[in-house]
């Protein structure tokens, strides 16, 4: 019994040490190595069970580059000119509690980098948070850890969209307290000048609610993310501006 208690104590101390270590200096090497082992298993599982659900269709065909190109065509059409793209398929989801991220079956070997914009048929759905050789973790815009610089297309007002959890609207913080925004206005990405970041003017969502009380720090609103957030399968990643 004493050995059991000692063992438990060691495991708890190890857990706490890991938490402190990760908070101070997160190392992606171990996570990347684990992804390389787990992702092929996830890909196989998705292949086998895809015919039973709508989330995934005909994964075997998807491994064919031509089939990939056909599936990606309508999504890649939204990519700004001059951007290289990679097409990935969702093989796993991490949607515990408030979390909202997915794993795609393409990674560093396809040119994907951390911070890359990820597109679905409706527009921007997330950014790459972690990359392994043949897989990448995509933080969806609905994850509370996600913040995306945005602009209200009609008025040009700038702001920040923050996730509120899967199935929830995005929280919008508009910088200008006197901003003229209305329900139904389209929200697009603000964009950055980075070669591998999020380009401007990608659809992010549509304003669905307004907080009428303007405060000194700006205006609050809610935005419905682009369609298809809960039925993601084929995704296009904007890897680099050429």
């Amino acid at each position, binding site marked *: 019994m004493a050995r059991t208690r000692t063992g438990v104590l060691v495991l708890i101390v190890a857990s706490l040490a890991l938490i402190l270590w990760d*908070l101070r200096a997160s190392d992606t090497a171990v996570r990347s190595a684990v992804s390389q082992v787990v992702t092929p*298993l996830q890909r196989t599982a998705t292949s086998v069970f895809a015919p039973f*659900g709508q989330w995934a269709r005909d994964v075997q065909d998807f491994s064919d580059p031509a089939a990939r190109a056909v599936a990606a065509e309508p999504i890649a059409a939204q990519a700004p000119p001059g951007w290289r793209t990679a097409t990935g398929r969702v093989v*796993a989801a991490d949607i*515990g*509690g408030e979390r909202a991220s997915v794993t795609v079956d393409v990674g560093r070997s396809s040119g994907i980098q951390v911070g890359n914009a990820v597109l679905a048929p409706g527009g921007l759905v997330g950014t790459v948070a972690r990359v392994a050789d043949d897989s990448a973790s995509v933080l969806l815009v609905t994850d*509370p850890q996600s913040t995306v610089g945005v602009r209200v297309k009609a008025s040009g007002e700038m702001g920040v969209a923050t996730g509120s959890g899967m199935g929830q609207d995005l929280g919008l913080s508009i910088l200008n307290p006197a901003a003229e925004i209305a329900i139904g206005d389209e929200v697009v990405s603000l964009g950055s000048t980075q070669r591998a970041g999020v380009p401007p003017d990608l659809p992010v969502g549509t304003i669905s609610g307004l907080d009428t009380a303007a405060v000194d720090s700006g205006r609050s609103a809610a935005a419905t993310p682009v369609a298809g957030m809960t039925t993601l399968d084929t995704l296009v990643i904007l890897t680099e501006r050429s």
Partner: protein
Amino acid sequence: MSTASARKPGLHVPRVVIGSIVAVLAAYIIESSVLPAIGLSAAIPVVFAVVVVLAMAWGPTVGPSVGFGAGLLIDLTGTGTLGVGALVGCVLGVVAARIPVDRWRWSGAGWATLATAAAALLDTGINAVLAGRVPSVSLNLLWVLGGAALCVLVLLPTRAWLQEAVR
């Protein structure tokens, strides 16, 4: 409380190790890939349910180790802070190994469901706090609670078989 320590006087260690790895890995693949592929939520805590059932079957020495390993797998493949899942899994293993059971195949199902759901919510909650957010209740709570109950009801009848398999 009839503790699990009395259930397993001698465990076949290699079988326990291999069985734990296979069970946890299978549960993880089901939770992260199979459930979303067939249109169910990835919030269903299959991995934690497996930890509970293994801890109930194999006792307080195995339970925390399996929980630690399973939690670590969740940490390493997810977006949360490394160590949080391991800590929650370890404590879950300790708690689950002490759930009172009798010969009925679904004995302890209520406590097992509560422990599974609590672990899933704790994992999310602690990660939210460490990321500087206030944990909130969402529709996923229904998936967590209902999913935990379903997993426990499906897995718990294997407890007797698991005990026999490692003798």
